[in-house]
Every structure is written in structure tokens, then in C-alpha cells.
């Protein structure tokens, strides 16, 4: 299992806990993540402005991975969506592929469609597999309950995501949470969008969307909301204080990334998983996992 590690824009600057914990989990499960220094933005931010620009930028990143002969592993669901979608479209549309390749020519790059794009969570689920991970669990989290947040671009549009999970009844993240020994908090707003992509244009609308889920998870008293995308984190962790103000209610919903949760169950020290960088957290929960010095 060897992948080109696509960090995107947000993770390596603002979500180092996600990166740290993913690298830790990858190492302990034998997934080799190769850093390609020329990877940059995935192209998603340009899709609303000029779809072809966005595809060309996605194809540039894919071409870099092809040159190394490596499939791509993403942490951000928007990056994963953007790259998979470009891969899907360009593989099936020769005219579009030629047009994009024409634009990549000055960079000495060519896109052929020879590599796959997989979200880190999908690699855990499909490549490593539940059984193999289960055998490595050293500290089952059986006393705790976590709410999965799938986000949207992780598994939709289904056509580009290659049927990774059911769009109406997704299971992958829930099964991965159960694997750690924790219970899954089933909640009515589970499939809700975080609202992240409207934050820049209408903050109150984005906050209203995120508030629905935070309010419900708070009411049901889970131990936290489990994320797999930094965009969703911007809403549920970054905006949580503002949402509390808007609702005039304390929420304090701990937000963590799935690899952090899995890392704890695999026996990692919380520091190695970047828990110090989580802004809304349950300190007593994390303390239980700290290694004695």
C-alpha cells in the first residue's frame, strides 16, 4: 500500500492534528504515504468560476502522481471529490482530455488517467480492511459514543466516487468507529451538510446549517463529533463559538478527526495524534489515554 499523499491547502496549514494522526495511523498500519512537493491546490475553489480551469488544475496534480506511478490519497473530502471527478470526466471524454493536456504542455506534464484517487478513510476501509485493523486494537473505546459526520464530497456525487458508500445510508465511517470499540451515535442530522462552502458568501446561512447538527449532538450527549474533512472542521470546530452565540446556548461538542480516534484505540499517545491542537475537546476524555512519563 503506497500512495502519493495529497494534503491540499487547508490541512497542512490549519489542521495539523488531522495530518499528524493520519500519518501516525498510516505508519502503524503499513500504509506508505509519499509526499510529492509539487502538489498544490486541487482545483475545487475554481469550479464555480471556471470549471475547465478547475479540471486542468486537478489534472496537473494527477499527472504529477502518474509520473511517480502512484495513486493518490487525500485527507480533505473536497480535494478527493475534485480529483476523483476530474479523473472520472477526463477518462471518459477524450476531447476534454486533449484540451486539458494542451494546457498542461507548457508544464511538461501529461494526464493519462492511470492512477486512482482515494480518501484516506476509504484506504482504511477497503485496502487495509476492518479485520486487519481490528486485530491491532489495543485500547478499545467501549465506554464512549461518537457521532459520525460523513460530509458530502467524501461519497457524492456517487458516480465520481465510484459507489464508495450508499448515499442514503452510508456505513463506512460508522463501521470504522465501531471498530475502535466505541458506539455510534445515530442522529437524525447525520447526513446534513456542514455548510462550509457557503461560509465565505453568507456566514449566517452556513452557521444555521452547522447549528442543526451541533445542537442535536449536544442534546444527545455523545462524546464528540467525528470528522474526515477539514472543510467540515472549519464549521463544526472553527465556527462553534459563533454558533453558540447565535443559538444563545452552550454547545461544547468535542470535535475530532477519525484517525485521532483510531490512533487512541491503536494505543497512541494523544500528543502524537495532535490532540493539543483540537480547540473544542473533552480534556478528561483525552487524559485517560495519556502515556505515563
Amino acid at each position, binding site marked *: 500500500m503506497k500512495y502519493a499523499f495529497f494534503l491540499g491547502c487547508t490541512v497542512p496549514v490549519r489542521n*495539523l492534528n488531522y495530518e499528524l494522526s493520519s500519518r501516525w495511523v498510516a505508519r502503524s498500519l503499513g500504509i506508505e504515504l509519499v509526499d510529492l512537493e509539487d502538489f498544490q491546490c486541487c482545483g475545487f475553489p475554481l469550479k464555480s468560476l471556471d*470549471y475547465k480551469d478547475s479540471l486542468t488544475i486537478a489534472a496537473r496534480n494527477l499527472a504529477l502522481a502518474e509520473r511517480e506511478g502512484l495513486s493518490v490519497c487525500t485527507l480533505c473530502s473536497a480535494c478527493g471529490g475534485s480529483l476523483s471527478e476530474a479523473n472520472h470526466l477526463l477518462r471518459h471524454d477524450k476531447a*476534454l482530455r486533449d484540451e486539458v493536456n494542451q*494546457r498542461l504542455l507548457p508544464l511538461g506534464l501529461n494526464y493519462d488517467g492511470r492512477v486512482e484517487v482515494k480518501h484516506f478513510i476509504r484506504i482504511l476501509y477497503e485496502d487495509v480492511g476492518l479485520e486487519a485493523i481490528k486485530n491491532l486494537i489495543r485500547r478499545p473505546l467501549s465506554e464512549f459514543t461518537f457521532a459520525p459526520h460523513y460530509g*458530502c*464530497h467524501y461519497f457524492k456525487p456517487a458516480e465520481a466516487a465510484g459507489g464508495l458508500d450508499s448515499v442514503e445510508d452510508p456505513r463506512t465511517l460508522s463501521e470504522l468507529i465501531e471498530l475502535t470499540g466505541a458506539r455510534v451515535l445515530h442522529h437524525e442530522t447525520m447526513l446534513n*451538510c456542514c455548510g462550509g462552502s457557503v461560509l465565505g458568501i453568507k456566514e449566517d446561512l452556513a452557521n444555521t446549517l452547522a447549528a442543526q447538527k451541533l445542537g442535536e449532538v449536544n442534546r444527545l450527549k455523545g462524546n464528540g463529533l467525528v470528522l474526515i474533512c477539514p472543510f467540515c472542521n472549519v464549521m463544526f470546530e472553527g465556527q462553534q463559538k459563533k454558533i453558540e452565540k447565535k443559538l444563545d446556548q452552550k454547545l461544547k461538542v468535542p470535535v475530532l478527526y477519525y484517525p485521532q480516534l483510531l490512533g487512541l484505540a491503536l494505543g497512541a499517545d494523544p500528543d502524537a495524534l495532535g490532540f493539543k491542537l483540537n480547540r473544542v475537546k473533552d480534556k478528561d476524555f483525552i487524559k485517560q489515554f495519556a502515556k505515563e512519563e
Partner: protein
Amino acid sequence: MNRLDLKKCDPRFKDRVARELGGEHIKKCFSCGVCSARCPIEKIEPDYNPRRIIRMILLGMEEEVLKQEYLWHCSTCYTCQESCPQQVNFTEVIFALRNMAVRKGLAPAGMGAAQKLLMQQGRMYEVGDFENEKRTELGLPKIKSDAESYKTILEDGSSS
């Protein structure tokens, strides 16, 4: 809403939408309204109404559609797209409409910021010494920020 003056509508608008990447299936809509029924944005903000936007496209109300700020309020959650029995791919239609609005200069101010950032630094967030020092402290590899390749792509190619 004002009375609709069909003489001011352009019936070819739907064909132009259908020629856009992502807009190909717009004419398949049979108005069942499942897109609107399940849209999380419409529940909060009824002005944003996918079924109505589709009818407006099919009637040819080009400017009325493209100049609305609510086009930019879709959160791109793909719920409408995955529920549609006709595979209209409405989330992709929204992207197509936004592209058309940008080309006509009808997009809200500030929408071009992403393109500028990518041409300046290849990334949405700046990566400088501060960021890389923090990464090094945590044992993470340095990352680089290169404007050249995106400048080449975006200056040469825009906008086909």
C-alpha cells in the same frame, strides 16, 4: 413576483446551459420537485428554490437566473443530484450557471479571490517560514508554495 413577459425570455438559454460542462441534462427535468423537497438550503432560505430555478432556465429567463445572489448559496451537498429521478444533475447545473454568471460579470463581488490566490501562491493559504517552522517543530515535512505553474495554466488557458 411580477408577471412573466415571455417576449423577454430567450428560449435558447436552456440550450446554452446544456452546452456547459455539467449542464448537459437540464432539459430532462419533469418538475417533480424532489430537488426542492430535500434541499437543506431551501429549508432555511426559501428564495433558493432548485425547482423554480430549473423552470426559469427552461423558460429562458437568463438574466433573472444569472444575476441572483442565491445561485451562490448552494452548499453543493449533492442531495438534489442524488435524489433526482431524471439525472438532471442539478448541483452540476448550479456550477454551470455560476460559470456563466462569472463570464457575464454578474457574479457577486469578491468571487474571483480564489483565482488570484492560486496565481499568487498556488494555494488558498499562504505557506511561509512561519508555517514551515511550526510544521518542523511537529516533525512534519516542509511544504512549498509555487505560483508559477498555476500562473502558467490560468494565464494561458483562460477562459476557453
